[in-house]
Each structure stands twice: as C-alpha cells, then as structure tokens.
C-alpha cells in the first residue's frame, strides 16, 4: 500500500511539469510598446495563475512587427512552446512592406484585446464636433493636418476611412506620421496640427484634464465613463478597433493547438489578466477558433482595400 502511494507520488511529480507548459512569447517590438506590454502582461498572468511554469518574453523590434514575424515563422516551426504577439498594425505592415512572411505562415490563436482609436483636437480648436471636422475636410482636405502614429498603421487607416466615408478622396488626407502616439500628442497639444488620431489610451489623461477635446471614438460601442459618441453615432460610417492577438508557431498539430487555445482561454478568464486589462484601459475582445479565423481574414481584406485607397499599397 505504502509502495503504491509512493509510486503515485513519484509519477505525479514526474508528470507535474507536463501540466504546466513552458512558453516563450515573442514581442515583435521594442520594450515599452503595446505588444511588449501585452506579452509581459501575458507572462505575468500565465505564471501567477499557474497555467504555465515558466514564461520568457523576447523582443525582436522592427518594421511593424514583420521582422519578428519572419524570424518567428522560420525558427519556431513545429515548436508548441513558442508564441508571438501581433495585431492590426502588423496586418497593415505586412501589406505596406510587402513582407514575404504573412499571418498565413503562423498559427493564429486568439484575439485578446482591442482599443478604440480616438479623434481629438486641442481645447482651443474651433472644431467642436465631428460635423465641424467633416465640414473642414470637405472644404479643403489638405488644410486638415492629422497627427498620429506611423504611416499605414491603425491611426492612418482611420483617417483614410473617415475621408472615404464622407466622400473625400483618401489620397488627399494630409497625414503627418509621428513615431508614436506620444510624440503625436505633443504636436497636438502644441497646436501644430489640426486633429489627432491615435489610441484612446494615449490621450485619456489630457481628455480628462480638459487640455484636449474628444470628438469621437472609432469602436463599435461607447467607452464606459467617456463622454464621446462613436463615429457611427456622429454620422460617419466607420468602425475600427486596433486589436492585438496571439499566434502560435506554424506546423504544430491540432492537439497542440487545442492545448495552447485552452491555456490562453484560461489566461483570459483569470483574475490577474482581467485586473491588468482594467489597469491599462484595454478592452477584452477575446475571440478564438473559427470565429477569429474568419474575422482575421475579413480584417486583412478590408485593410488591403483601404491601404490601396490611401495609396500606400499599389
């Protein structure tokens, strides 16, 4: 009896590591950016909730994530412990950079979070509403200088979609690219540009303090506790969310994919993850399986179309 117990204990100990898989998550961006923060939040959640024993985060920055993606697709092939974070910006970067490696070369697992793009103007701007902005845009598209993140990203695409929706030629959009929402913020506060377009999180504290006026947000629904219409409510038929996703290595088996899916689902439902989302102001837009694959295909197609309209992709 005693022996049996011992055997059970030993085999239990040996089997234990198998339950808690180790992961290595690649953030295809520099430390500090959104993808890096997503990867590190995943790391903390997976470890704290004992879903995984040991999680490493690596950074491979560059070119909208396509450098990291290419490296990941080449080197992680068939390895179920490798994950990569990505998102909407990567979809655009793959198209504008004509990246030889695309999301079809990895195994997308799930969409995790989403963030609305916000339209803001300085407090002393004559523009009060989205209607004012649309009127100015129609009067002289070139005179409306938009400031946001790098060319071809979610911010630029939002500007292009708005122009298109109100009947202005998207190639006429005077988009000034900054290396990030933060640098754009400085230009908007300094009154150097007409309107700012970037993730709501970049502007939240200035909107609260009254230094910036929030005209609208691009998501499907209003944000809790934020007094601004969605673009659709304001009469511009545009819905866009800058989402972030996690993908696994190419060449893994269906069982391995299912196991990763289960781990990610457990992570998304964990208290650690939910608290982190609330702290950072990220919206949970978890979507996995076939529904995510279908949505991803739709997003890739729509992004390609608008990038052609803006003139960034031939």
């Amino acid at each position, binding site marked *: 009896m005693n022996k049996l117990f011992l055997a059970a204990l030993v085999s239990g100990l040996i089997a234990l590591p198998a339950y808690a898989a180790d992961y290595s998550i690649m953030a295809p961006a520099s430390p500090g950016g959104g993808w890096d923060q997503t990867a590190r939040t995943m790391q903390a959640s997976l470890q704290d909730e004992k879903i995984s024993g040991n999680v490493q985060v690596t950074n491979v920055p560059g070119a909208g994530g396509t450098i990291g993606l290419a490296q990941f697709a080449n080197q992680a092939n068939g390895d179920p412990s490798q994950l990569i974070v990505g998102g909407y910006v990567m979809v655009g970067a793959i198209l504008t950079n004509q990246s030889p490696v695309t999301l079809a070369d990895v195994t997308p697992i799930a969409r995790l979070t989403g963030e609305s793009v916000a339209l803001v103007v300085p407090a002393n701007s004559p523009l009060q509403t989205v209607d004012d902005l649309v009127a100015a845009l129609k009067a002289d598209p070139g005179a409306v200088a938009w400031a946001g993140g790098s060319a071809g990203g979610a911010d630029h695409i939002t500007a292009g979609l708005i122009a298109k929706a109100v009947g202005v030629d998207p190639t006429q959009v005077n988009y000034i690219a900054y290396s990030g929402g933060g*640098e754009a913020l400085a230009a908007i506060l300094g009154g150097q540009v007409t309107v700012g377009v970037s993730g709501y999180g970049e502007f939240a504290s200035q909107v609260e303090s009254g230094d910036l006026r929030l005209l609208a947000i691009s998501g499907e629904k209003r944000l809790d506790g934020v007094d601004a219409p969605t673009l659709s409510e304001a009469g511009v038929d545009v819905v866009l969310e800058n989402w972030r996703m996690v993908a696994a290595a190419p060449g893994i088996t269906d069982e391995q994919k299912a196991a990763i899916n289960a781990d990610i689902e457990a992570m998304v439902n964990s208290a650690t993850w939910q608290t982190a989302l609330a702290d950072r102001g990220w919206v949970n837009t978890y979507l996995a399986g076939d529904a995510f694959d279908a949505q991803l295909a739709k997003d890739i197609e729509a992004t390609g179309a608008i990038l052609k309209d803006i003139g960034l992709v031939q």
Partner: protein
Amino acid sequence: MDTFALLAQGLMAAMAPMNLVYALIGVTLGTAVGVLPGIGPALTVALLLPVTYRLDPAGSLIMFAGIYYGGMYGGSTTSILLNTPGESASIVTALEGNKMARKGRGGPALATAAIGSFVAGLLATLGLAFIAPWVVKFALSFGPADYFALMVLAFITVSAAFGDSALRGITALFIGLGLGIIGIDLQTGQARLAFGVPDLFDGIEVTTLAVALFAIGETLKIASSPSQLKEEILAVKGSVWMTVEDWKRSWVPWLRGTAIGFPIGAMPAGGADVASFLSYSAERSFAKKPEEFGHGAIEGVAGPEAANNASAAGTLVPLLTLGLPTTATAAIMLAGFQQFGLQPGPLLFANNAPLVWSLIASLLIANFMLLVLNLPLIGLWVKLLTIPKPWLYAGILTFATLGTLGANGAMSMQVFGIRFSFELVLLLAFGILGYALRRFSYPIAPVVVGLILGPMAEQQLRRALAISQGDPGILIGSPVAIVLYSVAILALVLPMIMRMRGKGGALAQLASDED
C-alpha cells in the same frame, strides 16, 4: 514655499531604509547595464517590471529612478576607458574622454563625468520639481519647423567643431546622412535603400555603427600598424583625482551642460544625444584653450556628461506633466505607473502629490547614491588600462561583438544553410569603414552624428512642409526658429573670421586626429 514642504515630505518618505536599499539596487544595476553595451536601461526596466508587482509604488519608482540615472552614467565609463560608447548619448564623451584616459588622466575624466552627472542630475531634478510646468510649455511650443532649425544648428556647430578640414568633416557627415536614409520612411511606410533585406527595414542601429567605427575600427588600425603598439598608454599619470585646475575648468561646463541638457531632454523630439552634441560644440567654442580639444580637453567630458544626465531628468518633465514618454525607458516607467493605477498627466500632481514628490526626492537620492558608488570605483576602473595592449584590444573586440549580439543578435540571415547574425555583418563592415576613415584621416564622429541627426532633420522638415502644404515660409515663421538660425549663422561665420585672422592653425591640426 509649498513646493519646498512637499519636497521635504517626499525626501522623508524616500529616506526610509528600505527605499534606500531599493535605490542602491537600482543604481548598481543601472551602472552595470550602462557599462555593458547591448543591454540598455529600457530593457533592464522592462525585465524588472514584474519584480515591482511585489513592491509598493514608491519602492519600485525609486528603483526605476536608480536604474535610469545609473544607466546614463555607466555608458560613459566604457566610452572614456575603452573608446566604446554603449549608447548614443556617450559618443561625444569618448572623443575627449578617451584621449584623456590614454594620457593617464582617466581618473579625472571619470571623476568629472561622475561629479558633472551628479551636479546636472541635482539641478535638473530641482528644475523638474520647481519649473516643470513652464519648461513643458516651452517644449510644446516647438513645432516641426523649430525642430528643423535646431537640427540645422546642431549640424553646423558640430561640423564646425571638427576643425579646419571642412571637406573631410563634411564628407564624413554625408556618409552618416546617407546611412540615415536606409530603412522604412515614417511618412510613407515605404522602404528605402533596404534592398529587400528585412533587417535593414528599421534602419541602421546607432550603437552598432558607433561601436563599429570607434572600437572595431580602432582595433583594426592598431593591428595594422604594430609600431603603434609600442606607444605607451599611461594608466595613471599624476593624481587619480581631479586637480584644482580640473575643478576650475569643469564647473562652468557642468552648469552649461545642464542648461543645454534639461530643456532639450524635455522636448518630445529632443534627446540626450542631441543635447550632448550641442554641449560639446558649445564647450569647444567657449574654451580658453581650444587647441586642447581633440587631445583630451576636460571641458569636452564635463559638459556633455552633465548634458546627458540633465536630459535624462528632462525626459521626466513631459512624462510626469503630460503622461508623454519620450524615450523607451520612460515608456516602460509609464507602464509601471499604470500598473499602480496612476495615470501620469496633467492631473498627476494634483491627484497623487505624495507619490510624485517621493519620486522626485528619490531621484535626488539615486543621484547621490550614484556618486557614492562610483567615486571609490574610479581607482579600480582605471586599472583596466594597465592590461597589456594586445589583451586590451582583444577584450574590446570581444566586448563589442558580445554587446551587439546581445542587443540585436538575431540569427536572421541564412546563406548556404548557415545562419548568422546580420547585425554582426554590419558591425564588421562598419568596422572596416572605421579603419579606412582613420587610415585616410577622416574624422569619425560626424558619421555617427549624421546618422542620428539626419533622419530627425528629414522627418521634421517634411512634417513642417506637409503642415504648411508646401509653403517653405513656415521654416522661418516662428521666433524660435529665427533665433536658432541666427545662432547657427554666427557659429558658421565666427570661425571663418577667426581663421582669417590666423587663429586657424590649431584647429587645422586637430582636424586630422580627433578620433
């Protein structure tokens, strides 16, 4: 008076024994990673972010502050002793600092860097406490046209600072500008001069170029002319500490460096590297003995070192008052704030005053710790130079290669089935370029300056013209820009007049061997 009371309260909080321990851990780690090329402060703070889940907000912010300041200072040690700048802000430190080290004055060079960093950190932190709202207003008033004017000023003063051989200096500058074009253009998203190589999409990494030109290029030069090996490097000549004359020559540059570094650090598109270039040029033009520049002028270490530390404190101005991170380290500190439910920005001072003041107080303490930690170590550091030259240069080569591998060493290239790191190939190619430049007496620094300033100048110029819809009038449309251009013209014309009066001889002599 209110501010003083708040600051005193903050100091009391930050002086708690546990917080002092965190500050010590922070500056030690920061100095260590600053010394190692390849691991920057940004990555260190990112790696330590999970640790802070277990600390209280004040404790972790204090640790971050220590890492940040420590990293800024650590970079200068390798610049001075080994001519291997680990980050872009310590490139100019290498120019004079390494010359001093070779003459046996490594001790005073390290000391003036440490004390200058302390003085600058102290003043800039007080600036952060007392005049942040005004500084940020000034920084925000800078539009793209004004930034472009600032870049023009930097170009002119920096290339003028490389002496008489304008042709060689400008040739070197243009090599840097050419390298700066490589990569994806921010405004259009299109790749330029990347030849389809994904590793080039993000442009040439400044530290790779700097380490290659300075460290590898020099090693090759030494290896190619064995006779130079006999030239003695003096580890210590005279005192390890600063002499009375060193103090006299250092204190004004410290203050000037602080005055230049703090506002430039506070600018969203400024940065410690730009501040250190401008400070170097300023010291050179104000120097009583300009002929010493290029041969180890202590002002050329004191000024830029003060400027880059002041600029580090400057970056906290937009971070705390606007929630605007202007460097990668600041971005991660922002993430740290958010983790504690704090939103840096206009309301932070009002909503979380005690925490903000203990952060500012902890900066003062971190700064002090740094001095305490580093001054006694100077004697130890300079011993590095007693290593026989072949060993020393072999060590530098290993160090430079490991650093590059650590920073961007992805094995991304594959030729004939062999994987290798593209970044290492770049390192070697630029090392050979560095050797050729030295061999034919071209200055090295303008290449790196071109790579750093070129893309900034280009983006700002194009932003300015896009906003004005093509009207070039915007470039001289603001008082700030006009002032900057006037200073630039002065900087261009004054040396010419001086040269015509026959004072150019000394400058000419320097041009050939400023590396």
